[in-house]
């Protein structure tokens, strides 16, 4: 459903991504791995339209979306949950969620809200509370829930385990598995290599703006040389 070919993107005078080829199939969990500064976040920003690609094509559900506005890409069903949670701290949990679904109709909004509350019961308990008062893990749940409110076909999660305690990381990955079980495609962009490879069916390893390895997650997990060279394990 997502087809990226020869993607080049960057900021100012420098190219951060130097030719990325990448695919995501419907219902699949794909991990994009790499250390800090290899271009993971730039890749997300280019896919979601926050920066315009310099070259290459991005096709989503058969449509070319490269260089389109973020609003159009969200409407097409590709939603990006940015890293660092980026919730609206002074709005209530409920209002945060509702904002995620303004591109959809009003009846859909109520349905989606129920769906998200069923998925994250903690958010229902806190629905009237200001989002900024939630714990780190809850804020991450809210950010993901808010992304799901827009009825994505593919959701890109940027470092969902960042800054969470090991126990919460475990919980977060269980949740992601549950989301994907509903038939949603997930692109997981992570530094947490071990757990991402356990969850994903396929993985890409990013280094210096290029894909240096791609394949079934199990194969990448079983390649010690690869893990040592690029993933610091």
């Amino acid at each position, binding site marked *: 459903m997502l087809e990226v070919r020869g993607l080049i993107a960057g900021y100012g005078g420098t190219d951060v991504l130097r030719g990325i080829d990448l695919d995501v199939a419907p219902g699949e969990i794909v991990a994009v791995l790499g250390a800090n500064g290899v271009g993971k976040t730039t890749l997300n920003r280019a896919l979601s339209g926050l920066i315009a690609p310099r070259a290459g094509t991005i096709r989503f559900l058969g449509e070319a979306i490269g260089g389109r506005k973020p609003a159009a890409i*969200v409407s097409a069903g590709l939603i990006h949950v940015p890293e660092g949670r*980026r919730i609206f701290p002074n709005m209530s949990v409920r209002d945060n969620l509702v904002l995620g679904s303004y591109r959809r109709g009003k009846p859909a909004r109520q349905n989606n809200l129920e769906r998200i509350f069923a998925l994250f019961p903690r958010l229902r308990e806190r629905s009237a509370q200001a989002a900024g008062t939630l714990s780190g893990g809850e804020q991450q749940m809210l950010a993901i829930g808010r992304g799901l409110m827009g009825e994505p076909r593919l959701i890109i999660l940027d470092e969902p385990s960042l800054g969470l305690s090991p126990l919460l990381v475990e919980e977060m990955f269980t949740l992601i598995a549950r989301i994907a079980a509903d038939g949603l495609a997930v692109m997981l962009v992570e530094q947490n290599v071990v757990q991402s490879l356990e969850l994903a069916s396929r993985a890409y390893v990013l280094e210096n703006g290029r894909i240096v390895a791609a394949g079934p997650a199990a194969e990448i997990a079983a390649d010690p040389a690869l893990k040592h060279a690029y993933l610091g394990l």
Partner: protein
Amino acid sequence: MIRAYGPALALIGLAALVPFAVSANTVLNFIVFALIIALAAQGWNLLGGLAGQFSFGHAAFFGTGAYAAALLQTRYGVNAWVAFALGIVLAAAIGWVIGFLSFRSGLRGSYFALVTLAFAEVLRILANASAFTGGAAGTLVKLDVRPENFQFVSRAAFVWIAVALVGAVLLMTIAIMRARFGAWLTAVRENEDAARALGVDTLAVKLKAITLSAAITGAAGALYVQYFLYLDAGIAYGPWISIEALIAPIIGGIGTAFGPVLGAVALHVFGEAAKLVAGGVPGIDLVLYGLLLVATIAFAPDGLMGLLMRLGRRKTKEAR
């Protein structure tokens, strides 16, 4: 509905009764002037308070509304009411242009504030130099007291017009805050990048906000010139109105519907009281403005509205 709009409607009704209770010209003068400032501040609050884009140059909109209303009458013989409406439209257009130029290039925070300040100053210098605007001598609107000229014998008529305008914007602000557009404004204010990632077209939202904001502040300018019938570049585009338009919401409660109105009235009651007490010391009201601003930021960062809410909550707690 009643919960949301009731307090606003009650306040508007009460304000409309004031001219029946008071007939002293100085008091009515004071009310009209405070309401003009309130209107300008309501415009600022829409962009600065709701959308979080702080402008230091709302004079650009106030002055454009004022000059357009005045010059269309004096130079082109346009009817005063039509000129008033066109003034609002032109102010909105200037708002859109300034918004387009600055938001498109991604200016935020203090950079946006400085650019708006620069626009207002450029307009002030141009208006002061150009023969078209009457230059430094200013522009006089001919005194011809007839309702069709937007001039009235009684000051009460102006109070009602000002109350109607401020009231309409008050209701509109509440409606916006309850609507999808209001949620988008809040999202842009709280985290613009996150809003974009969720599919909010932030450029379009900010452009709508600045256009509407400029129209409201432009209406304040057009009303000003219709009331005082005189305008020069310092009044129209001077920093005084940019400052008034942003101090009132800060004192009253930034990003709230009532804040700008409350702040403008409180500020001017305070200023007048200070002038009475301090008498001959020139500029004492400005010194006190400064002190009030510092006190607000130190002790009531959410302004008078925040203070009232806190007191209200404490009361209900005690009652329990």
